[in-house]
């Protein structure tokens, strides 16, 4: 518009001067400007009739995408109307996508029926990213007269969290389900771990007869009984409260928590367990428990959209909706856990849940982003002392705690924290 005003203003000034001074030469000088404006109006573009088609594809096979992978976004625009001498197409890329190759905007000319391709490669981070409408601006050659429009070419891109293949931590819920699995069920039957001795029953194989005990009772035979191994219900609770996050961007603590949740869910599902997910933050994001690959996909999709949030209601863990999880099942809480959350954990234990807490360490993340200073070191030490205190109180309550420095592998942290305890779990005891 500034250009139009400039040309129009010059033309008008010359016209006024010519009329005022009665100088035809000035009026003649005005004519090129007027002709320039008139040509812009005459050749002005019609309403752009365009059709857009967007394709989003990954660099490799979807299931085997590795670190550093990118997506290729291809937009094809077809002119279904009149000729457009100068058309500018721009794709407003979601902020979370980092363009590594190509351009998201293109300037060109489009004849009727002609195609225009826009292609770029973007590095993606976890989340659900929505592509909006394309911005189109068509102009006549001088660029004075421009028409803008939005061209619908929406698409949704779901970037799942990266799943680390880990072994599931040993769990001992009070109640298991009816199908065979890896979790000791506290019931005698077929299994590998010794459970007790009972009187011989017809049909017992000879190898299960306990000859030592039978020798003490000449008239009776006794058989060994083994602990049944069953699958269990596992509920994973991801703490998505704003205050439980630390750091920023992709290096934030919450991103590590999301990846830990994904890895744990994957490990428990691989063992055949029934796994559900609750994202506890600004609102409650609930994924109903289920089995297998479909459930894995559901959980990963839910985790892809997980974001931290703030809510007065869910600021503390007091409102954990325990009815989502079967009673006496195993809960895995992925949270840095603050001292005022301990009461909520105690309530969970009182309702018969077995609780495993995976605590990503916010201190190491925060220290990495803060400038080195004695105050920072002192503060970090104080928070670590507080965390150690919380851990001790949790362990006294019978909660199993995995303290995870996020710069170390999760599986290593699980082995360090639970390895010894997992080797000899006391029967019937709440830890």
């Amino acid at each position, binding site marked *: 518009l500034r250009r139009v005003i400039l040309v129009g203003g010059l033309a008008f000034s010359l016209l006024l001067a010519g009329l005022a001074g009665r100088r035809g030469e000035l009026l*003649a000088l005005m004519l090129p400007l007027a002709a320039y404006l008139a040509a*812009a109006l005459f050749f002005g573009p019609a309403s*752009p009739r365009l059709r857009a088609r967007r394709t989003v594809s990954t660099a490799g096979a979807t299931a085997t995408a590795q*670190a550093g992978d*990118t997506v290729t976004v291809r937009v094809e625009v077809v002119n279904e109307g009149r000729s457009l001498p100068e058309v500018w197409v721009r794709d407003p890329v979601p902020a979370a996508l980092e363009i590594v190759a190509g351009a998201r905007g293109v300037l060109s000319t489009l004849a009727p029926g002609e195609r225009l391709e826009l292609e770029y490669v973007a590095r993606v981070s976890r989340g659900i990213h929505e592509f909006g409408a394309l911005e189109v601006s068509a102009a006549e050659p001088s660029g004075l007269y421009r028409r803008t429009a*939005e061209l619908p*070419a929406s698409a949704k891109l779901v970037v799942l969290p990266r799943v680390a293949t880990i072994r599931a931590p040993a769990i001992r819920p009070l109640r298991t389900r009816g199908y065979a699995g890896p979790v000791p069920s506290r019931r005698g039957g077929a299994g590998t771990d010794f459970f007790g001795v009972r009187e011989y029953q017809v049909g017992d194989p000879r190898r299960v007869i306990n000859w030592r005990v039978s020798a003490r009772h000449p008239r009776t035979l006794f058989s060994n009984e083994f602990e049944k191994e069953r699958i269990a219900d596992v509920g994973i609770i991801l703490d998505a409260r704003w205050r439980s996050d630390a750091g920023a961007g992709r290096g934030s603590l919450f991103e590590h928590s999301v990846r830990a949740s994904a890895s744990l869910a994957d490990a428990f599902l691989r063992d055949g367990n029934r796994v559900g997910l609750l994202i506890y933050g600004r609102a409650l994001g609930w994924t109903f428990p289920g089995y297998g690959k479909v459930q894995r996909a559901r959980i990963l999709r839910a985790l892809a959209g997980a974001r931290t949030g703030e809510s007065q209601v869910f600021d503390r863990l007091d409102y954990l909706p325990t009815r989502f999880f079967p009673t006496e099942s195993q809960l895995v809480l992925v949270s840095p856990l603050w001292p005022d959350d301990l009461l909520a954990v105690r309530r969970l234990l009182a309702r018969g849940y077995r609780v495993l807490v995976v605590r990503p360490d916010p201190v190491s993340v925060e220290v990495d982003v803060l400038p080195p200073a004695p105050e920072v070191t002192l503060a970090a030490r104080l928070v670590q002392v507080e965390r150690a205190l919380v851990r001790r109180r949790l362990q006294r309550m019978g909660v199993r705690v995995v303290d995870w420095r996020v710069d170390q592998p999760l599986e290593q942290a699980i082995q360090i924290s639970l390895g010894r305890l997992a080797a000899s779990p006391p029967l019937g005891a709440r830890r």
Partner: protein
Amino acid sequence: MSLRARPQRGVVSGLQAACVALCVLLLGAGYLLGGMVAWAPVALLPGVLWLAGRWYGARRPAARRWIAGAALALAFGVAAAGLWIGLGAVWMLAGAVAGLCAWDLDDFEGRLVAATRVADRVRLERKHLWHLAGTSVASLVLALGSLQIRLQLGFLPAILLGLLVLAGLNRTIRYLRHGGRSPGSPPGSTSQAGAPGRPGQATVIGESERVPGYGDAGYDAVVRDPYSLGREGN
């Protein structure tokens, strides 16, 4: 240079420089031939301003536009002054048209530079140059032809004509400002940002490819997070 020749990269820049030089030469020649030797260097001012715009605009592209606008105004000002004092009209008109071409090419080059990618650049440049050449020649012929017309206007008709032109200019600016919609018509009657198309007529159609297998979610692609923040997952 023939317009039929295939335009190369940078041809717009070269032509713009040529137009600036032509503008300066024609205006300067008009002043020199009219005996205004002392005032001839004034014709250099638009060229100097354009040069300054190029030098300064390389670092601040936003500044380049208004400097070019000022240079255009100066070129027309120099031409108008020359015409006022009775110098050769052909020289002045041709110099002003060359200045207009230089200004147009300067803006076009700015648009090419600002675009992250230009598809089919050669055809785009060729279309622009043909359009500009046609407009310039037509306007120059029109201006020179108009010098042959002698029309006596009284004071009142001149005032009325001025008011009419003012109203027309106002109307034109409003028309261009509203993207082709005549003032007073309801929004959305032509393509606007966020409201494309006339009512009841879809002017833009969009579609996107969906990846099957994601059911109702209808996601177009599902990939894993590529960022490996820890050492796990090996």
